[in-house]
């Protein structure tokens, strides 16, 4: 394991397996009456969120609390950031207060990497700009392995606005590391030009891809992140790339429908489709807590010294 979790491109296949196996144990903790273990007693985890995110922040907060760590939530509104404090000064302040780990969400790609140069604690990337969102990718890998029993050889399509999606980047890297076959599907304007270099296939025709899938992973149309010129209209998008009942009928038996949330029902996914039994969107949320517990435990549970015990 690295000292920080910044990108799925520096997580090895062995690390992924170790993280998923550890998360398995934390899933069991989540089924108990007392959903809390004393593993990280006395450690402090700071959630530093420069962008709004309810689910990721709550998931991290719950994960740290279930490990008995102390949690500080730092959001930009109502904090020193709204008074103009820089990321560096905020980081140094948190360091001076004894933060053992900083979970950061930032609108600028690379902000977590910068943070690692200023603080001694562990840094976990909870989404940076259009770069990466590694904990989302890991919880998705966990969910796929849990439901389908393996990752190697799985045929996965990631459909939608890949260009602006940090989820798509992290998940693609993770799936390729684990030996899955990934196809990115979307309008040409929303597929990054360097995508073939990730080790994935590209298609602009969802109907040709769907019948051969184990997992159809639908991305959110990020209206807040894109100026509308990438496709002519939302209606046209949902007709050409939305996951409709007709397309679900073409999916092979036993395949999964996934979405990182929050969903735009009726845009990238039909409302009925989101509620089908093969849609595992709620399991993704539950598994997210276990994955984040596993990551905090694996990063903070060692002394961090390079000497083997």
């Amino acid at each position: 394991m690295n000292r920080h979790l910044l990108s799925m491109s520096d997580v090895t296949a062995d690390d992924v397996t170790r993280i998923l196996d550890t998360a398995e144990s934390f899933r069991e903790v989540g089924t108990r009456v007392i959903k809390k273990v004393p593993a990280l007693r006395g450690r402090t985890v700071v959630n530093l969120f420069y962008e709004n995110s309810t689910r990721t922040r709550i998931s991290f907060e719950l994960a740290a609390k279930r490990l008995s760590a102390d949690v500080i939530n730092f959001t930009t509104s109502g904090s020193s950031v709204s008074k103009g404090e820089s990321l560096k000064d905020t980081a140094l302040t948190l360091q001076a207060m004894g933060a053992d780990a900083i979970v950061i969400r930032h609108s600028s790609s690379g902000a977590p990497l910068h943070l690692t140069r200023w603080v001694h604690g562990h840094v976990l990337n909870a989404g940076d700009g259009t770069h990466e969102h590694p904990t989302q990718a890991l919880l998705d890998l966990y969910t796929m392995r849990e439901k389908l029993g393996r990752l190697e050889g799985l045929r996965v399509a990631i459909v939608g606005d890949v260009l602006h999606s940090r989820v798509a980047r992290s998940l693609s890297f993770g799936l390729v590391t684990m030996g899955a076959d990934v196809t990115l599907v979307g309008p040409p304007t929303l597929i990054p030009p360097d995508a073939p270099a990730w080790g994935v296939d590209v298609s602009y025709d969802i109907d040709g891809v769907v019948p051969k899938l184990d997992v159809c992973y639908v991305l959110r149309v990020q209206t807040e992140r894109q100026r509308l010129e990438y496709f002519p209209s939302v209606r046209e998008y949902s007709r050409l790339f939305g996951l409709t009942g007709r397309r679900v009928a073409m999916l092979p038996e036993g395949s999964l429908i996934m979405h990182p949330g929050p969903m735009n029902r009726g845009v990238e996914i039909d409302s009925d489709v989101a509620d089908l039994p093969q849609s595992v969107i709620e399991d993704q949320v539950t598994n997210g807590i276990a994955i984040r517990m596993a990551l905090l435990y694996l990063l903070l549970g060692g002394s961090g010294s390079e000497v083997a015990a």
Partner: protein
Amino acid sequence: MDPADVRRALTRIAHEILERDRGGEGVVLVGIANRGDDLARRLATAIRQIEAVDVPVGVLDITFYRDDIGLTAEAPEVHETAIPFDVSGRTVVLVDDVLFTGRTIRAAMDALMDLGRPRRIQLAVLVDRGHRELPIRADFVGKNVPTSHADQVRVLVEELDGEDAVVVEGAR
């Protein structure tokens, strides 16, 4: 100890549990991963052969309750916990391979308390090697083995290691 010694010790412990706990009523066995769970399953089989009662068996991983998290270079490896019954009101017999400092048992008792409120907790170990660092003792002991503090005591079980044995290796 050779395989026959291990078998005889477990059979005797099974008899002692039945004697102490009135025919095994309300008794559950909880093995501490790794190897304690294998021993717990064997005790359950022995108890069934003696008295024809089925005692439930669970596996407990104590990693999250260890007192040395953050002191080793890497986070300690996690195993599975699977206790498919309620421990509240039961007599829980913790089963482990070696009793040494007592720290594992302290962690196991804390872990059990988070799962419910057992009526009583007892401890069965295959080997007691001494050198306690906490005020903890075993109720059922397979064999007392005098050791020096630096010795390594390894219990091998057929399920994991291919054979049953207890090996004491002197400090090098």
